[in-house]
């Protein structure tokens, strides 16, 4: 089976989707001739022509607004916002338009678009190239929100997102593009080619949206994470020796509540981890659902490990990033409670 980086997997997802469906079009800033600043669309223009993969003006509301119009026509646009931090000009189009077109027209018009955005920090990107705005999307009814943690999922979830009849926000943790970064920034990252989940079928396949995956089975505590934090959580479990179960959510909306409830009901302890800022973050929703559904199984308060409630700093990146040491401390605390 071919081995792919997450960049190659994302590219392959668009490639096989464009190959099987002429209505799939790809566009965004620098995505055409050059193939994107992260090279996710490299080669697509050469293969499918300029009218199916092209560069756009630097105008995110235009990119998403045009995609909405194309979807109303009957195309399936898969567009790139260069960094999740750049999506704010498109927020109106996403939240009040894309998300509601099916509802407000009672299905007369629909909006099958995918908006891909590199997300998260760990690349010394400072406050405008590091953000994790997923909670700004999970709060919007009508959107679906996906955050993959490895190449295999990235391809299968992106093909599923492109085929999905509703708008999907596809957040790509850019720190994972080249390998399963676990937060140990002082060590080199193992490339995806040496990782089981770097094995990606060349052909078309999909992974159902809304299904979580257990990455590590354990009985002492459940760690709920997504994206980069899945690998941080795995490292924290190894570093502390605590028998943690690690759930990779993959899809934040819709959410696989069943898998969460089954695990936490068994372990009685839970740590929720995300890189995004703490207050009103997506972790708050998870914690709330767990107390609603697992209250009588809980042995300890549920903990959250998240980015501090500050803008993403530049020089102090590793003091900001919720790495394995912080997750490990939370695990120890939850076990001692």
């Amino acid at each position, binding site marked *: 089976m071919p081995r792919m980086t997450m960049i190659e997997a994302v590219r392959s997802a668009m490639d096989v989707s464009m190959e099987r469906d002429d209505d799939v*079009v790809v566009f965004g800033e620098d995505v055409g001739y050059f193939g994107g600043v992260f090279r996710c669309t490299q080669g697509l223009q050469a293969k499918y022509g300029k009218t199916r993969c092209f560069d756009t003006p630097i105008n995110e509301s235009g990119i998403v607004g045009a995609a909405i119009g194309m979807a109303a026509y009957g195309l399936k646009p898969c567009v790139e916002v260069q960094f999740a931090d750049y999506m704010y000009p498109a927020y109106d189009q996403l939240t009040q338009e894309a998300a509601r077109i099916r509802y407000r027209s009672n299905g007369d018009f629909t909006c099958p678009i995918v908006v891909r955005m590199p997300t998260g920090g760990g690349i010394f990107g400072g406050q405008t190239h590091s953000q994790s705005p997923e909670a700004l999307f999970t709060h919007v009814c009508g959107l679906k929100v996906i955050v993959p943690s490895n190449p295999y999922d990235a391809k299968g979830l992106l093909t599923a997102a492109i085929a999905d009849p509703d708008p999907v926000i596809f957040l790509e943790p850019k720190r994972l593009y080249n390998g399963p970064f676990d937060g140990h920034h002082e060590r080199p990252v193992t490339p995806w080619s040496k990782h089981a989940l770097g094995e990606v079928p060349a052909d078309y396949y999909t992974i159902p949206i809304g299904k979580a995956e257990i990455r590590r089975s354990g009985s002492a505590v459940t760690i709920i994470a997504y994206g980069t934090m899945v690998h941080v959580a795995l490292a924290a479990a190894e570093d502390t020796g605590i028998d943690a179960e690690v759930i990779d959510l993959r899809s934040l909306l819709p959410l696989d509540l069943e898998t969460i409830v089954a695990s936490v009901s068994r372990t009685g302890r839970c740590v929720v981890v995300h890189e995004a800022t703490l207050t009103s973050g997506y972790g708050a929703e998870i914690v709330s659902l767990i107390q609603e559904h697992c209250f009588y199984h809980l042995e300890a308060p549920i903990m959250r490990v998240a980015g501090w409630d500050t803008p993403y700093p530049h020089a102090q990146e590793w003091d900001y990033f919720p790495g394995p040491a912080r997750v490990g401390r939370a695990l120890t605390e939850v076990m001692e409670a």
Partner: protein
Amino acid sequence: MVESTHLSLHVPEPAVRPGGQPDFSNVKIARAGTVPRPEVDAAPEDIRDLAYSIIRVLNRDGEAVGPWAGLLSDDDLLSGLRNMMRLRAFDTRMLMAQRQGKTSFYMQHLGEEAVSSAFRKALQKGDMNFPTYRQAGLLIADDYPMVEMMNQIYSNEADPLRGRQLPIMYSSKDHGFFTISGNLATQYVQAVGWAMASAIKNDSRIAAAWIGDGSTAESDFHSALVFASTYRAPVVLNVVNNQWAISTFQGIARGGSGTFAARGLGFGIPALRVDGNDYLAVYAVARWAAERARRNLGPTLIEYVTYRVGAHSTSDDPSAYRPKTESEAWPLGDPVLRLKKHLIVRGAWSEERHVQAEAEIMDEVISAQRQAEEHGTLHDGGKPSVRDIFEGVYAEMPPHLRRQRQKAGY
């Protein structure tokens, strides 16, 4: 040393406020028939003047004159008049229904009927409009059933949108009418995207974008013009300048630019300014722009100069910000009366037939209204189901919504 002065902020003001004498002496109006009609493949830079003039066909005597005249037959014009009258009668009844508490909200077209009615005539089946809240003439002129519009306005059990949308935010794909948002300007760039899709698929259908003078200040207007210009999208970019954005006069959005049409020039988009109260002129210009789009020559920006005679909506009171008699002083007159006069001059119409048509049309509207009210009004009779709140958020209802629907008891 550069000389400096104390800076001061310029805040534009309309010429007159309530209590003052209406004054449109600053509105420069070309005489009917005097603006040239270029070929549709004219280079944008050769027709820049059209963004600063006003294309008009009907003169004061009700005659159709000049190079933009002569496109419509008696029958076309009679049906145009009829559609404008139907829209006006529809507005009258629905405004009254709102006052009677049968719905929460309404927006009328008084004075602007020619714009959407005549534009619709320049489109073909399959073309798509991305309208604002004041283009119901597109539906009426395409014979969309009035009773369906009323069901939507009443949010009753037969409402095609199941009670989810504010009154008048219609949607009809079959009639080339994209779902109205109620949000401003977002649809403008969506129209460009739809047109780009049509071009990507080598289709022959075109799109039409709609926006008001006030909303041209939104960044999505700029987004739309950039995209339309870059990709030469087959789209007609309509700006309806009805002078007022709720209480804000058009000078606040226009700024130092001479006209709204001129906004297109910097993008290399041909821009035309037209008498929005002249059915023949609106049709002629719309047809010119539609032909350009259909011949793959790209986008056209059209500014319709008109006047919002009524309030912005049923929640607005214009007497608080403009003279009560301002609409009577509006120099471009009333679109229905002007077309009526023209048809009489042509010998195709008479005062008697007009009175008779008014009565027939009112009967048509009242009968549709009666039919709609059998299905209920906002607070009385048949209603959409509570179940409809939860349906249609997604193609397939996700588990969390199913749980919430069950909690609501459905």
